Structure formats: C-alpha cells, structure tokens
C-alpha cells in the first residue's frame, strides 16, 4: 500500500489550497495511507461505530457550529475521544475558527489541524482529486508513446527493434511524440494515461546519431505532454512459422494496471514501412470505435456470397425441365 507524507501534501499545496497549520510544526510528521476522505459528523456526535479514522477528516461549517454549540466540558471530552484515534489530519474549511481547546488537544495527541480558505464542497473535490492522483496505480514501461489522429499508441518490443525510429518517422509525418524509451503510465478514472518519466523535454536517442531534441528539431506541434493509451503495438522480429493475425476477427488483449486494452503483435522485417501500418492501426481503431469492423464486414459478405452460390447450384441440379 502506498503512503504519502502529510508534510509533502502541506508544502506542495500550501498556496493552491491556501493552507494554514494551527497545530505545532511537529504534528506534520504523519503519513496518509488512505486516498479517501471522511466527514466525521457522527463521530463528533458520539457515534464511533465504523468511524473511518484512517482517512483524512474534513470539518465544514456544520461540524464547527455543532462543536461551538457544545458545553466546554462536553466539547473537551468528545474531542479527546475523537483524537484518541490515529487520524492522519484534520482539515477545517472556509477558514473557520476552531475552539482553542480543540487545538490544544490536537497538539497533545500530535494530530495536525489545518485550515483552508476554500469552501467545503470544493475542497472535498480538490483534495479528493489530489489524493486520487497520488494514490493512483502507476507503472513505467519500456516503450515509446505516440499520438496519431487522437489515438494513443504504445509501441513496445525489444531494444533495437526500431521503436524510436518508427516514432521519428511518425513525427515526420506530422504525428506526435509523448515519451520515448520509458513511458510512465497512470491509471486514472479507468483511463490509462501515459507521460514521459521526466519533464525537461522530449529527447530521444537515435542509434548511431546520439541524442536529439525532438521538440527543437520538428517543432512544438510534434510533441505532447500526456496522452490516453488506447492500443499497444508490440513490434517483434519476423519469424516464418509464427501465427500472425491474418483476418483480424479476434482481438488480443493486454492487461496494464488492471485495465484491458487491445494489443497488436506486429512482425517487423528490414525494409518494411511500419509507420504506415501504425497509422492504419490507429485509423482501424477509430473505425472499430465507431462500430465498423472491416474483418466482420468482409467475412459477412463472403458468407452471403457462398450461401447464394450454393442455393443456385442446388436449383440447377434440381431442375429437371
């Protein structure tokens, strides 16, 4: 299970969320290990069954006004009980002020209390999105990610098979490069997003030449920062007896981070123009998305033709006139 230091969250988002720490600096030494958020209304009211204390807690106007309505002794006892749980952090929205007792107790129990100026609903959404991103499953794959006609294609295959050269050829044809050699993949909202592993530019190693700067060389339109991955194309050396897809009635599927996408095993041999085939794969993917499958269409027409012919033959044979 992934964890994230609260300190990192606080310093990274301090300005964007306009955060302010009410407790001591040392209370930030906490880890978040759950991407979900909880609003502890019921716990504050004294109901602790199924209290999701391991989540980040958000207190809004309702919770704060409830706390203010409590008598000081009761407030003290209740807050003390809530804070005995190992809560990663408590966020107060709308810049609301918190009773001094609460801050005092939180310091005692080493639980950070942080205020934000953002409203509850918006903060709930923003923090959720931020945590989702942090806790999203990721993976780095050896490959090259390109985009053509809006379709993201992940090129994989052994070193030296020609992934980079293929990407270069595609870029020259006006398509875009996202990442070469290593592609960082994040599963976000059931979508596989691919980016480069670094953010200092689109460099590429071309065997025999060295490093080149794709953005400088081909222009800003030749690159892209991130792209949804729609299809994986595995380039492999041509072997005579291997079973390559001939008609395309069946789809091969690959599992990346639990998400299934189509994979195409593409035989490569010297002198073959792969980039054209990659473009064809992208366009075929678009057609399939729109519900047109050439393989199905062709075989359906062929079958109809065969049926008609067989019928005619039978008619001729049965005809005794």
């Amino acid at each position, binding site marked *: 299970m992934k964890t994230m230091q609260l300190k990192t969250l606080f310093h990274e988002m301090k300005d964007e969320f306009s955060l302010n720490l009410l407790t001591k600096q040392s209370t930030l030494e906490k880890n978040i290990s759950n991407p979900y958020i909880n609003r502890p209304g019921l716990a504050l009211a004294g109901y602790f069954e199924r209290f999701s204390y391991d989540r980040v807690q958000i207190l809004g106007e309702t919770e704060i006004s409830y706390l203010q309505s409590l008598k000081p002794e009761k407030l003290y006892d209740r807050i003390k009980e809530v804070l005995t749980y190992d809560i990663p952090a408590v966020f107060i929205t709308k810049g609301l002020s918190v009773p001094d007792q609460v801050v005092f107790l939180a310091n005692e129990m080493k639980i950070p209390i942080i205020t934000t100026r953002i409203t509850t609903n918006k903060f709930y959404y923003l923090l959720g999105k931020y945590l989702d991103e942090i806790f999203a499953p990721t993976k780095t794959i050896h490959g090259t990610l390109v985009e053509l006609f809006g379709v993201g294609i992940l090129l994989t295959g052994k070193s030296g098979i020609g992934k980079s050269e293929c990407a270069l050829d595609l870029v020259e044809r006006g398509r875009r490069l996202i990442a070469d050699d290593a592609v960082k993949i994040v599963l976000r909202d059931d979508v596989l997003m691919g980016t480069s592993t670094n953010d200092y530019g689109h460099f590429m190693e071309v065997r025999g030449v060295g490093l080149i700067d794709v953005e400088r060389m081909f222009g800003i339109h030749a690159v892209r920062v991130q792209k949804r991955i729609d299809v994986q194309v595995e380039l492999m050396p041509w072997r005579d007896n291997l079973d390559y897809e001939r008609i395309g009635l069946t789809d091969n599927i690959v599992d990346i981070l639990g998400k299934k996408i189509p994979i195409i095993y593409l035989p490569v041999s010297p002198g073959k123009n792969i980039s054209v085939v990659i473009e064809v794969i992208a366009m075929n993917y678009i057609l399939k998305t729109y519900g047109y499958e050439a393989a199905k269409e062709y075989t359906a027409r062929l079958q109809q033709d065969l049926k008609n012919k*067989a019928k005619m033959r039978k008619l001729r044979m049965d005809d005794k006139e």
Partner: protein
Amino acid sequence: MIKTKVTIKNKLGMHARPATMLVKAASKYRSDFKIIKGDMEINGKSIMGVMTLAAEQGSELELVADGVDEEHLIKEITTMFENKFDEE
C-alpha cells in the same frame, strides 16, 4: 510438382474460418502452393486469395504444390478438405 483435385464438402463453403485454417497450415511448408478454381489461380498461402475464390459447397478445386515438402503439404490440406474443416 503434385496436382490433386478436391471438393468442398462443408455446408458453409470456404468462408473465413476454413480459409484461415488452410492458409495457416500451408504456410508451415516451404513448397509453393497454388489453388485453382475454374479460370482463377491464387496463392494458397494468401488469406485474401483463398477467400477471393468464394468457393461454395460442392465446388471443385485443384491444389498444386511444388517444392521439397510438397507431398506433406498436399496430404495435410486434402485431409482438411475430407474432414470438412471440422464443420458440418
């Protein structure tokens, strides 16, 4: 060079599935392989070629193999026709 005649026995004729079966089997061999139907002559290792024949049930085909392993090729392919490509 071996030549032999076969008849399509399966009900649906030479549609996509048997065509794929036939081409995959033939591609394993090194011999050249042609299929002749009437005035059409196609490469038996090409899927589009085989489907272009549009050979229905009852039609007659001539198989022509030429090469070092021609006998094995013809044997495997004719068996496929006899077994109706594992169809009705």
